[in-house]
């Protein structure tokens, strides 16, 4: 552990006192505990190492709840250290007391309330082990004030004794053989790759595997970067706002190979019409994911990378020229597209320009909403861990603090938070953190003066009754950035987009770009909620 993100308070004063003159651990002070936990999450997603956050008891701890839930839904390794009132005050409704292990029980992989300082070394070791192995996830360590003030001899336990904690790393051989046979039999295979591929570090094996069996690859939002979006076999994202060709391919395939995915409702649409003609192989380290939402023909429980290595050993090159022709024809006939309008910036255009100007090499974080979907559609990722987005929980306000975590991990990298004008205001206070630590994060606000995704649904499903989705009270983002000591620029014309992006990238300061975009642009294609994948609105057959 090198970096912690946090916010001090009464119950963690002893911890902060220890950090005061410690030069091994870098502490980053955010302006809100939620900012700290999202920053730790972003750090973890970008590096693969567990993120660490510290908050005080009571409100400090409860301010972490959304961030912990966010990490839990997206299987991010995170250790949250919370202060607690002294042991003899627990249960008495003491000042700044909250039962944080109880509150976070449904959203953590495990949690500890430490009642004896002699257990602390063992618990910290176990917490990091649980957070980062198997299916990763958040672990809470709740530390009463008197425990952190106490002294003990440091004894790091040589072994971990957790009799109930087990996960299967290698798949079962008999099932592997079934999978090999199914792959050889398949005429129209599709690979559906998710966050598990990135978590297990299987991107190179996936590339080899896809090329070997000549199967097109579609990725989930969490799987973005698991397979290069620029590869000929790439179909981009599938699901509600996936590409038409990815959704057609899944709907028509005879073999669907799910790798580190969980058949989320935003991916499957109507479950009973999902991949109707396909035999389904599902590889995941979490046995509870197999068969949870969709019936699986060939379950392979284990680490995606380990199983891909085994499959690669058994499988000869396959050819599916006819199938690939069909899929490529869909890609040609039903591409992602949007209409341009003279003198109006289209949000998709901004994302395309960010992609071009960074050559696809930047770290992208997003908030949640329309801009997130446009980022997923139009920013083509070549590498894993460079697209950081709140998938499962859909947390507005995640992207900016997450970008700070990414920038802390990679100080020289170009980092962009692609944001909406709604989302960015949920953790805008972290501009102070960015300025204090001289983090040159770029924020690209696709400002449509609306909660765009809410407005889109109101337009489509609620008769254009735009109930409370208009952001009439937006601040002047440029002045706001300047007030914090960051830089800002408002961009209103398409021809100014590129120079503005270049200026932001070249600036050593945090930079807020306020792109005033077309207010009523919608995200297409779209599978209406509960609809079948092959029935999309916008840009389809």
């Amino acid at each position, binding site marked *: 552990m090198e970096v912690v993100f946090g916010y001090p308070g009464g119950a963690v004063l002893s911890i902060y006192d220890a950090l005061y003159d410690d030069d091994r651990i870098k502490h980053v002070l955010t302006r809100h505990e939620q900012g700290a936990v999202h920053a730790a999450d972003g750090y973890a997603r970008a590096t693969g190492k567990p993120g660490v956050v510290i908050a005080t008891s009571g409100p400090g701890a409860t301010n972490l709840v959304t961030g912990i839930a966010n990490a839990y839904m997206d299987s991010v390794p995170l250790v949250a250290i919370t202060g607690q009132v002294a042991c003899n005050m627990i249960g008495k409704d003491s000042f700044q007391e909250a039962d944080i292990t*109880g509150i976070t*029980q*449904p959203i953590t*992989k495990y949690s500890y309330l430490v009642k004896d300082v002699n257990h602390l070394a063992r618990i910290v070791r176990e917490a990091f082990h*649980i957070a980062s192995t198997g299916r990763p996830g958040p672990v809470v360590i709740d530390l009463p004030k008197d425990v952190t003030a106490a002294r003990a001899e440091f004894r790091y336990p040589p072994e971990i004794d957790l*009799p*109930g904690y087990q996960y299967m790393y290698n798949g079962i051989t008999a099932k592997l053989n079934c999978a090999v046979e199914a792959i050889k039999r398949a005429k129209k295979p599709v690979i559906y790759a998710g966050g598990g591929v990135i978590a297990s570090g299987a991107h190179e094996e996936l590339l080899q595997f896809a090329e070997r069996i000549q199967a097109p690859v579609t990725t989930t939002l969490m799987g973005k970067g698991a397979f290069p979006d620029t590869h000929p076999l790439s179909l981009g994202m599938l699901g509600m706002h996936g590409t038409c060709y990815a959704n057609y391919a899944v709907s028509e395939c005879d073999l669907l190979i799910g790798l580190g995915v969980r058949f989320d409702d935003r991916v499957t649409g109507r479950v009973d019409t999902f991949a109707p003609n396909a035999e389904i192989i599902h590889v995941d380290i979490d046995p*509870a994911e197999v068969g949870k939402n969709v019936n699986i023909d060939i379950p392979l429980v284990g680490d995606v990378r380990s199983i891909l290595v085994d499959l690669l050993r058994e499988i000869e090159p396959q050819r599916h020229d006819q199938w690939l022709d069909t899929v490529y024809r869909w890609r040609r006939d039903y591409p992602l597209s949007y209409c341009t309008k003279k003198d109006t910036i289209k949000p998709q255009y901004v994302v395309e320009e960010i992609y071009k100007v960074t050559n696809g090499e930047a770290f992208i974080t997003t908030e949640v909403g329309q801009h997130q979907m446009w980022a997923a559609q139009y920013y083509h990722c070549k590498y894993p861990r460079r697209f950081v987005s709140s998938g499962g929980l859909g947390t507005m306000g995640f992207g900016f603090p997450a970008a700070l975590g990414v920038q802390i991990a990679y100080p020289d990298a170009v980092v962009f938070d692609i944001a909406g004008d709604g989302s960015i205001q949920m953790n805008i206070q972290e501009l102070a953190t960015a300025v204090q630590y001289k983090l040159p994060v770029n924020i690209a606000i696709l400002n449509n003066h609306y909660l765009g995704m809410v407005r889109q649904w109101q337009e489509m499903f609620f008769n254009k009754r735009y109930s409370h989705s208009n952001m009439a009270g937006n601040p002047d983002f440029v002045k706001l950035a300047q007030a914090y000591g960051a830089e800002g620029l408002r961009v209103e014309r398409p021809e100014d987009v590129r120079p503005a992006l270049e200026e932001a990238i070249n600036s050593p300061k945090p930079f807020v770009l306020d792109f005033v975009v077309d207010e009523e642009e919608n995200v297409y294609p779209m599978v209406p909620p509960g609809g079948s994948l092959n029935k999309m609105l916008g840009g389809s057959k």
Partner: protein
Amino acid sequence: MLKHTLALLVVNRPTVLSHISGLISRRAFNIDSIAAGPTEDPKVTRITLVVECEPDEIDQVIKQLAKLVDVIKITNLTSTKAISRELALIKVRAPAENRSDIVDIVNIFRAKIVDVNRETMVIELTGEVDKTDALLEVLQEHGIIEIVRTGRIALARGPEPAREMGE
């Protein structure tokens, strides 16, 4: 909806029961009964959980429970040969004129009378859950004042302990 009997061996920690009951409720499964107690190993608690769900759901219940860090082992005793029992204490109205009637019923059910006073009796019954239900049904007309039931506990027949049984 079927009732499934699961034997869980769990690490003896104060939070483990709430982890299990919390998981069952938030995944929208129904607990019929839950009974916990110490085992031959002081570090391990055994919980008998009766869950009501569709046959295709029980797999998911078991997998989700198995993910809990403190759950060491789960054995599904529903379709194995197992002995299952619960203990019930029943306080029933028993004025002098009805007492012999109630004593007859208690004898037929091989239950025991463990407390008597001028107005009431407490009956202790051990048996399968249906047997308790049947006794309660018969005692209904005499006026049941209160009941307490432990919920089902279960143990497989044969020499093999749950900790060594296959999935």
